[in-house]
């Protein structure tokens, strides 16, 4: 029982990667940046009052599941999605899908995936992967962040799919029911870009979208006064990890989104999108520069190279450039 025709491609980010891999299997030629952009994956939020393992929550992407849902909807692909009460039912349903010759995507906790090295395993419950077959009692796994396919024992997979915490995957599984013959990429791309601009620029609350970058910049400025050096260092470290950890595609998704803008620009023959792509690439470099200096500051735990004030300024500049960029992207005449 294995979907032998399944082709694994490595991607930068798990959710857009799984989406691209499943859609390609269904005969839709789509790249990861395209899936990410149409699904309006790029975002920013900083929640000082929501502590994740003791540090304030920061994210560079939209909430889990949104990319996949928006992309498939915008392309007119019909998906089946399902959650389960028990691991037994979840495994049975998975076996049935595989028997019908379809690969299935699912949510899992990275902590319970034995094939990942320890350095990557923590209680993060929204990791996406594809199971494309079963052989000798093991599931065949296509994890988009890996270069190659791998395997997992059913009991291990069950543990990962039924991990507890926030969010709880509860065995969440999805597969392509039917794909359309003709796809209107133009409309899908437009809808994705419009939504991204809306989410970046419109939220009236300081914790979401572009505004949150300035909030984080202000907070970082206060770290030396408010926190012990150890805490300040851990808080900064968390921002860098969110920017670069598992499947962020570099620079907090900025390069991934710039790749999307470029591909969209070529496809729709629009020079303005190509220009925006080049600009975002530069902003991505600014983000990397910020992370680089933050890491230096963290390592030394003293402010000899760049102080918290200067870090805060680097971040504020990223925020200003992005606000300017997305304001102009929002004004595109389609």
């Amino acid at each position, binding site marked *: 029982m294995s979907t032998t025709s399944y082709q694994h491609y490595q991607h930068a980010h798990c959710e857009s990667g799984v989406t691209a891999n499943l859609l390609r299997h269904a005969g839709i030629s789509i790249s990861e940046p395209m899936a990410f952009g149409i699904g309006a994956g790029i975002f920013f939020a900083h929640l000082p009052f929501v502590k994740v393992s003791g540090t304030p929550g920061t994210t560079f992407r939209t909430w889990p599941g949104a990319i996949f849902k928006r992309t498939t909807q915008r392309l007119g692909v019909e998906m089946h999605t399902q959650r389960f009460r028990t691991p037994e039912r979840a495994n049975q349903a998975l076996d049935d899908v595989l028997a019908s010759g379809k690969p299935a995507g699912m949510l899992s906790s990275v902590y319970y995936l034995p094939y990942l*090295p320890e*350095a*990557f395993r923590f209680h993060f419950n929204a990791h996406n992967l594809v199971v494309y077959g079963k052989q000798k009692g093991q599931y065949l796994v296509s994890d988009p962040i890996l270069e190659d396919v791998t395997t997992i024992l059913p009991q291990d997979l069950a543990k990962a799919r039924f991990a*507890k915490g926030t969010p709880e995957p509860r065995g969440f599984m999805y597969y392509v029911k039917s794909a359309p013959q003709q796809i209107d990429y133009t409309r899908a791309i437009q809808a994705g870009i419009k939504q991204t601009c809306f989410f970046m620029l419109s939220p009236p609350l300081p914790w979401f979208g572009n505004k949150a970058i300035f909030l984080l910049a202000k907070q970082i400025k206060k770290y030396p006064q408010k926190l012990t050096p150890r805490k300040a260092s851990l808080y900064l470290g968390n921002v860098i990890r969110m920017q670069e950890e598992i499947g962020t595609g*570099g620079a907090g998704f900025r390069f991934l989104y*710039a790749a999307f803008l470029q591909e969209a620009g070529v496809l729709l023959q629009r020079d303005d999108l190509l220009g925006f792509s080049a600009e975002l690439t530069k902003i991505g470099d600014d983000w990397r520069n910020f992370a680089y200096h933050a*890491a230096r500051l963290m390592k030394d735990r003293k402010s000899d190279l760049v102080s918290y004030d200067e870090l805060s300024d680097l971040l504020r500049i990223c925020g200003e450039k992005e606000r300017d960029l997305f304001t102009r992207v929002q004004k595109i005449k389609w």
Partner: protein
Amino acid sequence: MKADEVPQDKRDFKEGDKIHKLMYAVDTDGKYTGITSAGWEAENIATKQAWDAVDEELAETAEKVKRGELSPIAYFMQKNLMEVSLLAKYAGKWQWQVKRHFKPAVFKKLSGDMLAKYAAIFNITADELKNFGK
């Protein structure tokens, strides 16, 4: 980021060098392309620091268990990178109950079933759990 700037700084802790992530960078013509990266110094520092913090706290807790101030449950909870809220969910208990189980005196009186449950959560045997720190 240009293709030749994709960082290749080895992630040499906790087998982190086994994974080469894909990153997007522009080639000499400005066209985006996917390139695998061995790791990046900035990320390595941040991740290493997070792991060091975990290891330090774990060592402190191990000492407390040995001195009889905490039960092995507190140690294995940390070893599995869990917080009380998460462990309580896995154990099917309230948080205050789990915290009570951190007391060595209470831990000694735990039923075999409860010990087995904790051991299963931590992926160890009940004996390993009971005998830790002795």
